[in-house]
């Protein structure tokens, strides 16, 4: 199988082949480098690799944005793009966009700090959300105008729900 991955801002081509004769044996090619390793998913999302007698435990947690891969005390975001999605992506290259601000967690909107069409500074608060007894200000990712306010005070939102659009 061939994939394209994006890790630490870098785009790399990956090819994985499982050797059918040795259980757990994986032959991998990444950006021209070849690895022969023994790998298994020992716990859900946790991969134990042995490569050149070095032992690695690598945890992969999926989220809506891609994966977060933990190795030792490091965590890195990794995105896997297969040929189909890569094509789809390419088709969308070059568009200009507004920014959506989405709820980073489930919670309640306790306060709305800006009005629609108001001017916003970078990092200016848009709404205050409450979850787990804590209030958190959701801030603007850029200077701009509030094009849309998608929530009302008192509303319950889920993680990922649209809060506002900034242009």
């Amino acid at each position, binding site marked *: *199988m061939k994939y394209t*991955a994006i*890790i*630490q*801002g870098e785009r*790399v081509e*990956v090819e*994985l082949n499982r050797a059918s004769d040795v259980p757990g044996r*994986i032959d991998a090619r990444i*950006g021209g*480098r070849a*690895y022969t*390793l023994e*790998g298994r998913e020992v716990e*859900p*999302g*946790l*991969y134990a*690799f042995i*490569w050149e007698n070095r032992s*690695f435990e*690598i*945890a*992969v947690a*999926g989220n809506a*944005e*891609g*994966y977060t*891969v*933990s*190795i*030792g*005390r*490091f965590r*890195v*975001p*990794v*995105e*896997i793009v*297969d040929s189909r999605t890569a094509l*789809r*992506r390419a088709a*969308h290259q070059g*568009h200009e*966009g*507004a*920014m*959506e601000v989405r709820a*980073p*967690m489930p*919670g309640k909107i306790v306060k709305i700090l800006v009005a629609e069409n108001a001017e916003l500074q970078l990092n200016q608060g*848009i709404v205050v959300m409450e*979850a*787990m*007894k*804590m209030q*958190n200000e*959701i801030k603007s*990712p850029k200077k701009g105008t509030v094009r849309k306010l998608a929530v009302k005070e008192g509303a319950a939102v889920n993680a990922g729900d649209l*809060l506002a659009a900034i242009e």
Partner: protein
Amino acid sequence: MFSKILIANRGEIAVRVIRACREMGIPTVAVYSEADRGALHVRMADEAYAIGPAPSRESYLVIEKLIDVALRSKAAAIHPGYGFLAENASFAKACVDAGITFIGPAPESIGLMGSKVESRRAVAQYGVEMVPGTLDPVSSEEEALRIASAIGYPVMIKASAGGGGKGLRFVKSEQEMESALRNTRSEALSAFGDDAVYIEKFVERPRHIEIQVLADLHGNAVYLGERECTIQRRHQKVIEECPSPVVDADLRARMGEAALKVVKAARYNNAGTVEFLVDRNFRFYFLEMNTRLQVEHPVTEMVTGIDLVKQQIRIAAGEKLAFRQEDVALRGSAIECRIYAEDPDNNFFPSPGKIHFLRTPSGPGIRDDSGVYEGWTVPIDYDPLISKLATWGATRDEALQRMKRALREYRVEGIKTNISFFMEILGHPDFERGELDTGFIDRWLENRGPESRISGVEQDLAVVAAALHYTGKPAPILREGKPAESPWKTSGRIRALRRR
């Protein structure tokens, strides 16, 4: 001993109390809100009573419901845990009135220590030093200037009704007094509806050190060493240690004696904690007394070998303390990290949700006091503390290295936690040296850059693991035209909106 104990709490502290009761052979009664029907404390208790909807003001905070369950279940005593009603004098009184033992101090002691002004007044009579300043609101600029010059600049102007870092101003000299006074008053009025302010000497780079005390109903009281609680984020403790890396036997004894004076002043019984601010010259000032068990009690338990929850229960049952001050010995060093369901890579936003996978660390010198389990959905309605992880070592360094090892073994999937954040903090040279002040984390977060990159091989293997995971799992939703998010972003999740 009590025939049955009701635990008026939830989460990890309810589990902690149930464990103590089990070891003492005392049956337990849990209470639960609708969000907590399948919670660990409900599963572990012998009895369980529903007390209403998820919001705590309709369940865990409703005194009448708790008293009603205690009476129906024939519980002889109530343990309040911490938080919720633990420092509510009316609750303690309602227990007494209903003929149920409140496992904690008398309502009067809770009331007295709960008042900023009255507690300081009571403690002052016993000669315990406080941060120099006024107890009463200052009435005029002239008075403020007079007081400030008496205690010496720099000073802080603080809103009497304030808290949580709001309504305070730093005043370096006479010239700044007028505007500081005016601004603090105006901020206090708008934030708290009360423009009363008072003046306190500014303590530079302070440490926050607290003394654990136990006092029985027969006039015996002991102190059980100190806890270093200087590592805070937004005025919330996140790492605690026992002993403090800077407290020696002499300072410990002096702080302990001061704490026992506070016990006297409050006519205190049961377990309590006296909090002090310690300046760079190791002068210490009384801050307040917490009239309950602390979140960080495990570090004291590990170093003294005394089970504080069992002591609370024994004291409430009228038993005399089974040991005296000279029997209390500290051995080794313990450190605690509070494991929160929050996202350290995203502004520490809360991260409630279902725990899909949970592996807790184990082996020598490790204690995990958890309130959750694999498969449990951490509710949105309560605070994000899911576990207290504590390690013990013969030395501070051993405890610290063990904590790093334990954090590496800890794995929680499905929700975000601050475990990775602790790994970063504990590796900081200032932390390793014990050179701490209360601003440590906030300063560190401001300067926090991306971590050093992983090596080439590790990066390649990370990609292999992700690709393997991709092969076996439904594909993650792909954001078009946007590379995967940096974990160092500190605001809400943002993505490009395309014009189509």
